[in-house]
């Protein structure tokens, strides 16, 4: 058995031995181990990418929330603004209407007062006239109640007629 000349027997045994080792390990060890490693790497990769995705989703969710809040704020402001405007408008309108109504009421009142005044004046006039008549009649009656006055009056009338 020399140092540098390969021995045929050992070559044969080595070929058989290594061949068996390779076949057994390839089938029962490397295949499951390598596929398990790949699977694990895959699952780690997947977990990492899922986490990354989740983080991105969270970020987008937060920004979306922010956006929604912003929108809500803007909407609230707008609603408040319109409400204020409406209130002002309504108040203005109410004020306008009220003053118009007041004016109208005053006008009406004035007209009624005028009418009443006129009616009252007319009544007063009639009353004055009646009273004047009554006074006149009473005066007449008092003046003409004796014979000479009556004769004087008739004479006056006759004088007047004569003039004509």
């Amino acid at each position, binding site marked *: *058995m*020399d*140092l*540098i*000349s*390969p*021995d*045929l*027997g*050992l*070559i*044969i*045994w*080595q*070929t058989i*031995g*290594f061949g*068996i*080792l*390779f076949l*057994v*390990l*390839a089938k*029962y*060890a*490397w*295949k*499951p*181990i*390598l*596929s*398990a*490693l790949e*699977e*694990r790497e895959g*699952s780690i990769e997947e977990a990492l990418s899922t986490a990354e995705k989740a983080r991105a989703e969270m970020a987008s969710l937060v920004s979306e929330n922010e956006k929604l809040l912003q929108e809500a704020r803007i909407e609230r402001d707008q609603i408040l603004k319109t409400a204020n405007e409406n209130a002002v408008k309504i108040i203005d309108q109410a004020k306008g209407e009220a003053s118009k109504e007041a004016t109208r009421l005053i006008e009406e009142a004035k007209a009624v007062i005028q009418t009443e005044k006129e009616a009252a004046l007319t009544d007063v006039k009639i009353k004055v006239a009646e009273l004047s008549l009554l006074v006149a009649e009473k005066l007449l009656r008092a003046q003409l109640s004796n014979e000479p006055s009556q004769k004087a009056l008739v004479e006056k009338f006759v004088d007047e007629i004569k003039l004509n």
Partner: protein
Amino acid sequence: MARKIICLSILLSVFLMYFSPIAQAASGDDEDKTGFIMHHIKDSHEWHFATIGHTHISLPLPVIIYSSDRGFEIYSSSNFVDPETHTFGREHNGYFIDDHDKLRATEEGRSFVDLSITKNVAMLFLVLGVTLYLILTATKQYKRNPNRAPKGIASFLEPIILFVRDEIALPNIGPKYKKFTPYLLTLFFFIWFGNLLGLLPGAANLTGNIAVTVTLAMITFFVTNFNGNKAYWKHVVATPGVPLPLLLIIVPVEIIGLFTKPFALTVRLFVAITAGHIVILSFIGLIFVFESYAVGFASTMMVVFINLIELLVATIQAYVFTLFSAMYIGAAVADHGHDH
């Protein structure tokens, strides 16, 4: 620290070499005292563990012989041991094991194949057993709950598996790496466990045996060339962009290159591991050559140090063999062939 140890041991060695009378006395028959080194490095028909006094503690191994005329024959290696000298040499059924531990037929010119379970074959079975046990035990966890973090043996093996897949197979082979990853993983773990187990005291020098390394290199060679695509073969037989006269030189070089690759793989692993074993055993041998406590101490320190380096070498060589296999395969399956 390491430098201090080296300096110290060299100083001690030189000092003792000159002044130790025992060293001079021992230098006469140091053949006998260091013979165990080559005996350990080479393959054997028995597994020798220790010799205490004159008793050899060794495990006899089966000797299996196939010949066309006599079929399969199985003997125990103890049948070939001479009962008096306790060494091989006794003839048994027309065979004997010679001084170089090689099985020979007594009848000259008879051809047979020695399929014995030699020390290295037994070591091979041990390595296969350990590798299978460790890896198959680890596999259970992946089958049970693949998405959990690895535990136990799996947590020890997983970084290495990932390293082979992501640092050796993927960058060198490219998109087709999945097909070759099982081969590269098997290669890496076989060589690595072989190297490590070979460092155990009493273990055989399996991955430092040229028959083993040449077999592994040839497997890579076949895997590479059977999977070689059009561009790869075109590159070998008619290198694109090279003028015709140059092709006459380039093509033979390319064809030689096909074979130098497995040759380099063979020699690199064989030399790295065998040299490591020789260095360690040489330091141990020094103790027996000098028979001195000081040398014994220094050598032991060095052996520990070299052993630590060998742990590194065991891993590096497994990595390098796998890496080069991946590179050769990668060059053969790459989509756009040549990148000089």
